[in-house]
């Protein structure tokens, strides 16, 4: 049997007396397509931060392919195949789009330990970076500084960097947030055409996206797992409607934004 791609076991995190994550157990199989939903302040981003190692848990474990990585730093986890995107862009704004990508590739493959050989001397890295940009239709912007791009296109760079890491587990924190609808479909296309071997967890408020993308949905409320199931089960769950979807009196699938 193969081990799960990612397992979170008995995860707790307190900020002082405030319990932002309570007893969370979460398992992503290889190739999982999981949505993490829940009202604002439910602790979704905190959970991503705990999985990626930005935050240390008060108790609990994170396992990657069955291996305990709880003690590893964020960078070590990233090198082992956990990539994420940020809810608010975290980009190298003063560098070109191409450099944003080649940097991710360089750190992934260990080229960045090299102080002597010129970056431009590795054509293979440049070509791979351009391939990633091509898949997000960013080639024309390759030599622009990231800060010169409109927000929607910056959002694409955000995802391109994570993909360039060639992750085994990909955590997408509201990838389409702040993107005009004319461009959000591009992001969703990319998300849908991801390598089927990658385990993907997506935090998303747009229920259309969630139901289109996810094979399973985890509902997080007040830091704890409220329920988990297939999109149909979640849609049919009266309690979920009550605490989350129903809050605004909208029908499931009707594009409920956030609660």
């Amino acid at each position, binding site marked *: 049997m193969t081990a799960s791609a990612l397992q979170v076991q008995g995860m707790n995190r307190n900020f002082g007396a405030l319990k932002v994550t309570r007893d969370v157990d979460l398992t992503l199989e290889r190739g999982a397509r999981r949505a993490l939903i829940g009202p604002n302040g439910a602790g979704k981003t905190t959970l991503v931060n705990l999985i990626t190692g930005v935050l240390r848990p008060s108790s609990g474990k994170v396992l990657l392919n069955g291996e305990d990585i709880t003690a590893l730093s964020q960078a070590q986890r*990233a090198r082992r195949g956990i990539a994420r995107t940020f809810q608010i862009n975290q980009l190298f704004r003063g560098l070109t789009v191409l450099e944003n990508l080649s940097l991710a590739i360089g750190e992934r493959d260990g080229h960045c330990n090299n102080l002597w050989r010129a970056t431009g001397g590795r054509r293979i890295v440049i070509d791979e970076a351009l391939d990633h940009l091509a898949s997000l239709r960013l080639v*024309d912007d390759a*030599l*622009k500084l990231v800060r010169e791009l409109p927000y929607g296109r910056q959002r694409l760079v955000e995802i391109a960097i994570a993909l360039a890491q060639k992750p085994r587990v990909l955590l997408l924190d509201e990838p389409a947030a702040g993107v005009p609808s004319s461009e959000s479909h591009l992001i969703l296309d990319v998300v849908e055409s991801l390598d089927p071997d990658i385990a993907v967890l997506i935090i998303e408020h747009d229920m259309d996206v969630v139901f289109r993308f996810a094979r399973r949905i985890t509902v997080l409320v007040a830091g704890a797992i409220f329920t988990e199931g297939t999109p149909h089960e979640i849609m049919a769950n009266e309690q979920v409607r009550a605490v989350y979807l129903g809050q605004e009196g909208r029908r499931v699938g009707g594009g409920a934004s956030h609660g």
Partner: protein
Amino acid sequence: MAVSETMNAPEASNGSPLSAHEGAPESARERAAQYVVSRHRFRPAEALPWLLAIAAYFIFPDRMTFGSQVAIMIMFALSLDLILGYAGIVTLGHAAFFGIGAYTVALMVVRFGWTEPISGLFAAAILTGIFGFVLGWFTLRYRGLTLIMLTLATAIMLQEAGNLRSDITGGYDGLPGLTFKPLFGIFNYDLYGHAYYLYAMAALAIVFVLVRRIVYSPFGQALTGIRENVRRMHAIGSPVHRRLVTVYTISAAIAGVAGALFTQTNAYVTLTVFDFDNSAKVMVMLILGGTGRLYGAFVGAVVYLILEDDLSKFSPTFWQFGIGLLLVLTVLFAPRGLLGLIENAAAYLSKRFKS
């Protein structure tokens, strides 16, 4: 990186219209690739500072001592640019490394009678490198204000330690009258310092090639990543602390070599090399010239030292006012430094001539 980026900026920024013209996405792609592939190559304009340095040797034969000081300060500013301009480490204690280098060669002469200058430079580089490594290991976990205070405190503590042991360091009276062996056993230290000018310039050229390689390497690219967004660097798996300690060690070693050259060309050293003034001065030079752009150190050091020299003749008490005014104007109106202004002007002119 910086020079090429802005010099090629017009080409880069009108990339999309051009590719729209040709209608082939492959060409936009090829141009992007070509730009990166050729970015690190030497450009003809880069010969300019070295041609000027050689010209100065023939035009101002009586100012070679001043010329050596310029070379030394360029090297010092270059070492700061590596950490400040590229990696984004803000420090107000860079004189610590300059001072250690300066005292390394001085004490080698005084304590051990070792007067060969070139091996002195290597000794200074190794010693300051080790010091930079240890200091960086502990302090580079911090950023911003905390780091500024830690670097500042280090330089002050070294100076005070030197003052406590003035029996060794000579205190603020210094160690005067140091004599060094002739360079390569042939070229003697002459009154106008011709040999030492060439010596300092040669050392600068070697250091510059080194720094330039680093800046255009994947490691150098990672440094700019740390400067731009350290959170993302962690997320893409970069060992940030290791990268910072590495570049800090290299920067310290280079500053140490600059300090060693300072002692050798002046034939004396005092504890003032550790002065806060010295740390501040090199930063002002770099900001005047432009950070994160290699040649900013050249422009800044030359402008600063010439102003210092001439303004202080004109008005010994108020020359600092002139420097201060220039710094304020630069920061307000030319945030990319004087070199940035020059680049803008060049880009503007080339655009005018093209159209």
